[in-house]
């Protein structure tokens, strides 16, 4: 494309390799001034790398960058800031016990001649910015006391305070609630109205539709297309992103529930602070059925899973698998009773990030033949198993058996966990937030895998904060509120609104629970 | 700070030589000129140049404020006087003794010093391996029968200055109770304890008073906090003077005296610098003069192997400092009289429990 001053940013032929791995292969990006431009791609497609090149965190091996039609060399973030580029990272870089104002001016303090901090002036400048863009935030609150959404606003303010005309937002909605997401989109629009330009990195199609004018899609480090968002359907964007036709709606046949595999009866569990978190909870899961637990975060989901997996002791009640009680035993006993768990926190509970993929693949069965014998690991068998898992569960890159788990993308890490847990041949598979932080392609994969395992006759307990997910793949939907199952429905019996109401503590007509 | 202390030691050595010289000693310390007056012995030609003396410290290291440091001062004096080639090797652990002695031997040393009785065994076996090298050890005497012919023992009659300070303590105490803090019990420390006790008893007899001595051991030569604790309990139980023969432990003893406003008596060197108002006097044991003396003998080609040299008042290698403002002139003069009596043999201070028991009778 021609270089022109119409464009706030033009990146042409950007190539970046890490060792032998080519992260970006001649990628182009042209962002018109005064627009919201989204950058779409799966995890690991190279979106963040491209933006890091623009922000000066990485140096491109090849390619040119033009800002407002002029060629620039962005050697480091300071140069980028000087050129009016601001970046809000996925992980905020704020000092927790500083106030909002202190954080905003940090590194760019207003001082008098003698180097004395002029807080009054700084305070006023911040206040002006807040009002100009409707970024409602208390300038004197400490960062540790404000919500994640507010913290994000502080990051945006920080960039604006440094005079940014071009804002890069890296996965800004990953940490936000739906309401906060809507607010953010509004703020983005007001910024653009003021002449700013925004690049938003995301893989959430709905948000792109709601926010952006233009969208550039990259896949595995290669430029795919740049489209006008208004002209495209979500399905089309998804297909371009993953490189094949994607069904956003999960296809499944009706469940054929068998005998009751798993039952919880009048379970009581306390949380870390000793307060009741799970109260008198009862549920059951049949073979060949997915039971979804819908609920807002903090209503006992965490404690329920910890009680089942025996990381926490229960107060009273029973947890039975195939008729055997497993409460208050040990995590290993639970695994031995054929309960496998996909934990919501991949990096904390699911994987040993500094183990290789192969080592991670046998985390629960390294002690049994053929993976070990006489106390010594059988590395050949472990490799064989890992390679099979990588192949069967489509983990990328294909030769990652001896890579550290840390080096893989979130989706691929999740595939390893799912593969590992499913290969345990469990009678009950617990999936807690199995698609958290994954992109469209990976989410589709996870959902299909859960349904496939259901059809193989496994009992599946799905715990998710995403109501869409619960609604689309559960056969039975239990609503969790304040540690209780307040109601239970068969799929298709109920709409999203009713469940949303129950999740928030409302009551369904005629039913009292 | 360290430099200050060293300077102090040198000054002290000077004053000692003058004061002791006045007492008319004909001891071996007067052989200061001996090194240069070449006697024609092979090792000592050309004023000692080319004569190699090596010293292996014990685990205290060369700056231990005690006999390692004092010995090294002696060798440095030797170098100044005669031009001998001197150097030291520091031991960090007991297992270093053998290898360090071996290293010294590898440098073709003519004379190798080991400092402290802890090295006795290592010196013995090193001497057997290298029959051509002279070895000397401070604070150890070997059994006559098994002593290798190329090893020299250097001992001090520490009971002599201990007797004098004990006498001073006895004369000075107001409470009739004095203390003694030892390091780890051994023959060497026994000399201090029984010499001191005998001195106290001698003063008590002279004044016809009853004076008791409270003797305790710290089981350490380095744990100054333990020294402080022991001394504190002694002071609070009525002692007003405590003498220590316990190396680094004594630093705590002196600190306790300073805190309690009581007296302590130093050891080995004049320890008044630690607490000028509380260190009554010190039982000097001038290792450096003995080390220098024996080294010079060896340089002159004297046959020193197989012998044990014992240094005392007569040789000007032990004594007390001349500074005596805390005890007053009368007591000091009385102490000087006792010193002369020891020199003349009128008083023979006991060095062991057995001798002490006999002494009391």
């Amino acid at each position: 494309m021609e270089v022109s001053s119409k464009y706030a940013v033009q990146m042409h032929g950007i190539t970046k390799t890490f060792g032998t791995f080519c992260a970006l292969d001649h990628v182009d990006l042209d962002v018109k001034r005064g627009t919201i431009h989204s950058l779409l791609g799966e995890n690991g497609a190279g979106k963040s790398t491209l933006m890091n090149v623009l922000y000066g965190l990485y140096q491109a091996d090849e390619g040119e960058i033009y800002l407002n039609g002029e060629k620039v060399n962005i050697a480091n973030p300071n140069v980028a800031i000087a050129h009016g580029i601001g970046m809000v990272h996925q992980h905020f870089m704020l000092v927790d016990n500083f106030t909002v104002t202190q954080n905003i001016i940090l590194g760019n303090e207003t001082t008098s001649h003698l180097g004395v901090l002029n807080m009054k002036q700084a305070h006023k400048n911040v206040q002006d910015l807040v009002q100009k863009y409707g970024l409602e935030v208390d300038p004197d609150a400490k960062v540790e006391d404000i919500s994640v959404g507010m913290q994000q606003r502080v990051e945006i303010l920080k960039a604006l305070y440094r005079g940014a005309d071009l804002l890069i937002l890296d996965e800004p909605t990953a940490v936000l609630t739906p309401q906060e997401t809507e607010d953010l989109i509004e703020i983005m629009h007001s910024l653009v109205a003021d002449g700013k330009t925004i690049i938003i990195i995301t893989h959430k199609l709905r948000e792109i539709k709601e926010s952006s004018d233009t969208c550039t899609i990259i896949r595995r480090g290669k430029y795919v297309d740049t489209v006008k968002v208004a002209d495209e359907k979500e399905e089309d964007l998804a297909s371009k992103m993953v490189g094949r036709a994607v069904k956003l709606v999960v296809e499944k046949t009706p469940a054929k529930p068998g005998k009751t595999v798993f039952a919880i009866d009048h379970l009581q569990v306390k949380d870390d602070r000793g307060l009741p978190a799970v109260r008198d909870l009862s549920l059951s899961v049949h073979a060949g059925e997915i039971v979804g637990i819908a609920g807002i975060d903090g209503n006992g989901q965490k404690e329920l899973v910890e009680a089942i997996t025996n990381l926490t002791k229960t107060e009273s009640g029973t947890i039975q698998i195939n008729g055997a009680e497993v409460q208050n035993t040990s995590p290993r006993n639970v695994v031995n009773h054929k309960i496998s768990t996909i934990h919501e926190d991949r990096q904390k509970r699911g994987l040993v990030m500094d183990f290789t993929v192969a080592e991670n693949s046998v985390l629960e069965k390294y002690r049994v033949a053929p993976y070990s014998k006489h106390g010594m690991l059988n590395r050949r068998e472990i490799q064989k198993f890992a390679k099979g898992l990588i192949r069967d569960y489509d983990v990328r890159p294909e030769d990652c058996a001896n890579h550290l788990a840390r080096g893989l993308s979130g989706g691929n890490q999740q595939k390893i966990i799912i593969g590992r847990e499913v290969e345990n041949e469990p009678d009950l598979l617990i999936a807690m937030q199995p698609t958290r932080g994954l992109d469209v392609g990976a989410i589709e994969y996870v959902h299909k895998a859960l349904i496939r395992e259901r059809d193989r006759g496994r009992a599946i307990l799905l715990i998710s904060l995403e109501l869409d997910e619960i609604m689309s793949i559960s056969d039975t939907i239990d609503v969790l509120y304040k540690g209780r199952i307040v109601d239970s429905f068969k799929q298709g019996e109920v709409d999203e609104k009713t469940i949303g109401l129950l999740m928030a503590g409302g009551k369904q007509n005629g039913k009292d629970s | 700070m360290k430099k200050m202390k060293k300077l102090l030691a040198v000054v002290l050595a000077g004053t000692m030589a003058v004061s002791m010289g006045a007492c008319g000693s004909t001891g071996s310390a007067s052989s200061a000129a001996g090194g240069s007056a070449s006697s024609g012995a092979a090792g000592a030609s050309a004023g000692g140049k080319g004569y190699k003396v090596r010293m292996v410290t014990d685990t205290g290291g060369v700056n231990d404020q005690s006999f390692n440091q004092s010995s090294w001062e002696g060798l440095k004096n030797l170098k100044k006087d005669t031009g001998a080639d001197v150097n030291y090797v520091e031991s960090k652990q007991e297992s270093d003794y053998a290898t360090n002695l071996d290293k010294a031997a590898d440098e073709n040393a003519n004379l190798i010093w080991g400092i402290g009785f802890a090295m006795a065994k290592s010196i013995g076996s090193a001497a057997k391996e290298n029959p051509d090298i002279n070895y000397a050890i401070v604070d150890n005497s070997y059994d006559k029968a098994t002593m290798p012919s190329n090893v020299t023992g250097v001992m001090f009659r520490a009971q002599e200055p201990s007797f004098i300070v004990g006498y001073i303590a006895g004369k000075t105490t107001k409470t009739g109770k004095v203390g003694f803090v030892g390091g780890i019990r051994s023959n060497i420390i026994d000399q201090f304890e029984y010499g001191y006790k005998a001195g106290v008893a001698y003063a008590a007899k002279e004044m016809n008073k009853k004076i008791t001595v409270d003797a305790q051991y710290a089981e350490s030569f380095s744990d100054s906090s333990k020294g402080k604790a022991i001394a504190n309990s002694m002071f609070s139980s009525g002692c007003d003077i405590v003498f220590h023969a316990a190396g680094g432990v004594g630093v705590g003893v002196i600190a306790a005296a300073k805190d309690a406003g009581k007296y302590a008596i130093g050891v080995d060197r004049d320890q008044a610098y630690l607490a000028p108002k509380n260190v009554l006097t010190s039982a000097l044991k001038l290792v450096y003069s003995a080390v220098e003396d024996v080294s010079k003998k060896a340089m002159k080609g004297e046959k020193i192997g197989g012998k044990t040299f014992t240094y005392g008042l007569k040789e000007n290698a032990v004594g007390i400092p001349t500074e005596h403002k805390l005890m007053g002139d009368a007591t000091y003069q009385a102490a000087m009289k006792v010193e002369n009596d020891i020199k003349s043999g009128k008083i023979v201070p006991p060095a062991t429990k057995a001798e002490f028991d006999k002494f009391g009778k």
Partner: protein
Amino acid sequence: MEKTAKILKKPITSTIIAIVCGFAVAAIVLAAAGYNPSAAFGALFSGIFSKPKYISNVIIKATPITLTALSVAFAYKVGLFNIGAEGQYIIGAVAANLVGYLCNFPPIIQIPLVVLSGVAAGALWGGIIGFLKAKFGIHEVLTSIMFNWIAFYISNWVVSSARFHEPNSTAAYPVNPSSYTMLLPNWKTSDAGLAVLKGHKALREVLLKTDVNFGFVIAIAAAVFVWMLLYRSTKGYELRAVGLNRDAAEFAGISVNKNIIITMLIAGALSGLAASMVITGTDPHRISTLSAFENNGFNGLSVAFIAGSSPIGCIFAGLLFGGLLYGGQSIQANIGAPSEIINIMIGTIVFFVALTAVIPKLAVRLEKRGMHNAAK
């Protein structure tokens, strides 16, 4: 340039650069103090390599610190910082000394008995720390420091007790000669032995003038054992999982607490083994009054650090450290520079190893620059 960057990325390169920097700083300090650095380093190297017996002494010096380094490195792999190696060593030495003195069996029974008693005492000492951590969550660094001092005073108490104190010494009675683990302890001083050795100068020096013993062979075996345990056994798999991510390990059914205790038991045993090999293998075969820590454990910390916690690396880092400790004395003995110089050098090397995180980054920079140049 790319090649340079590649080499720089290897951990061994960083370590070597750190060592070179250590020497460089020592040279500057020496020169500033008025000593000739090349003469000093000459003395150092001739103090290590010029005679077979010197090399033997270096190996003897390296033995205990290699073993304590293994203790530290092993615990580190399980996420524990075993600063208590010093205390475990001391208590191991006490136990080995006492058992070796009180018992007097034929060597075939006596040697394993004495060595194992040191190992057991060290293991107990480490195990207590592990237990306190697992059971009550008390940080191992705190308890380790306390237990170092407790061991220190126990050792001094034993040395001064009437039962074990050798009169007119600062030490306990040595172990019985049947406990000796030197090479041919009896033969080498016998007439027959002396006759044979007469013809072999180097052999005679090494055998007679140094306490050449089996300790380093044991240390190498221990390093291989630790490596096998960590990387080839199911137990090691568990231990590393606990070390790298306790939460995931716990979730997968691995008992974190049990493994913490096991780790500290093994780490303590390794430090105790170090003490056993010193007591049985080198003169004076006994413990003596400690006025300060002898640093057998603390030096192990530095060695493990230089080795990057690699069990096999500990062997080489141990030899390097042993060489500096032993050869360093020659600097003092030959050119008169104070022995503190060698401590500065060791300290600098450890410091630069700590800084080596910088070197791979430097490599990345170099790479970047290389690409820039290529692009131009």
